[in-house]
């Protein structure tokens, strides 16, 4: 059974996963990716590395949860994780939208207040002159 699989794909998978992990680390260090959003990617990369190294692992997990074909477990799990993450992003966007609205509003009201103050001080100056 072991000889049926080539080690090549395993090596590629490990290398790709590690490069991905390094890239995410670089993004965090450079401040381009906030840690709270990076957690998801770091965890996902560790899972990828784990199953790239431990080849029997995916079959064992599939058997454990009662999935007949291991690749089906991979697809199901991946799609589910992606959906959850997309939902998370929608929440993040909604949050930003709300904050953006409040900031815009406050800025416009502040501008109006400043204009009022300026016009008051202008008329006061005119009166004293």
């Amino acid at each position, binding site marked *: 059974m072991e000889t049926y699989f080539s080690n090549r794909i395993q090596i590629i998978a490990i290398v790709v996963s590690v490069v991905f992990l390094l890239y995410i680390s670089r993004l965090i260090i450079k401040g381009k990716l906030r840690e709270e959003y990076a957690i998801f990617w770091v965890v996902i990369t560790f899972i990828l590395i784990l199953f790239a190294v431990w080849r029997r692992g995916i079959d064992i997990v599939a058997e454990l949860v009662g999935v007949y074909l291991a690749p089906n477990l991979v697809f199901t799990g991946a799609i589910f994780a992606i959906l959850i993450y997309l939902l998370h992003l929608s929440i993040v966007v909604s949050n930003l939208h709300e904050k953006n*609205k409040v900031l*815009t*509003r406050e800025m*416009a*009201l502040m*501008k*109006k207040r400043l204009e009022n103050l300026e016009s008051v001080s202008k008329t006061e100056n005119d009166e004293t002159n």
Partner: protein
Amino acid sequence: MISTNATNTHFRIAVVIPAFNEDENLPSLIAELRQINHPDFQLIPVVVNDCSKDETALVARNLKVDLIDLPVNLGIGGAVQSGMIYAYESGFQYAMQLDGDGQHPPSEIHKLVAAMKKSDFSVVIGSRFIESDGFQSSSLRRAGIHYLKWVIKILTGLQITDATSGLRLYNRSALAAIAAYYPDEYPEPEAIIYFHKKKLSIGETPVIMRHRQAGKSSISFINSIYYFWKVSLAIIYAYLKV
């Protein structure tokens, strides 16, 4: 002669005008508002420029009206809320929404005021459909309004014949509610549910509306399907919200 303005029946109403690309309509609207000389109330226009691409801000400045100039486009709900917060913080006891496209004739305002005075409502909505006079809107839009009337009736028991009408008068407690929360997009029907949840009394009064004078309506035919789903969802969630 002593000014009669100082009587306690005389009150100031902030007229919040959300304006997106309305530089053509604004001068005549403001002129109409200024012509109104009612013994009971005084109208103070507050134009909210929702980051227009035209000269709305400049036109409003030249007209010497209060201008809230939003640096980013927020949509009708955000614009109205900004204007209402300004009115609230400026200490107005009453404020109203009057759309900037010229559909709402300022000469109808006294009807809303009369309805509020008579029945002590917190929110008065100007409805085109009670007396079916004046501009009646397209048949598709009327079907939508009929549907909204039905949904609002089921959820709140209120008889609102013109849920999408943006011609509304608010007292101070309604203003406080708007300052705390106001829906974003297509806010009018959802706001009714919100006011009902806040235990504010809502009434309607017949008004006559006009065709918009220039520019395009914010709801095109293609958008109407999106509008239907968005508003339906918003109403249901507004109802479920505590």
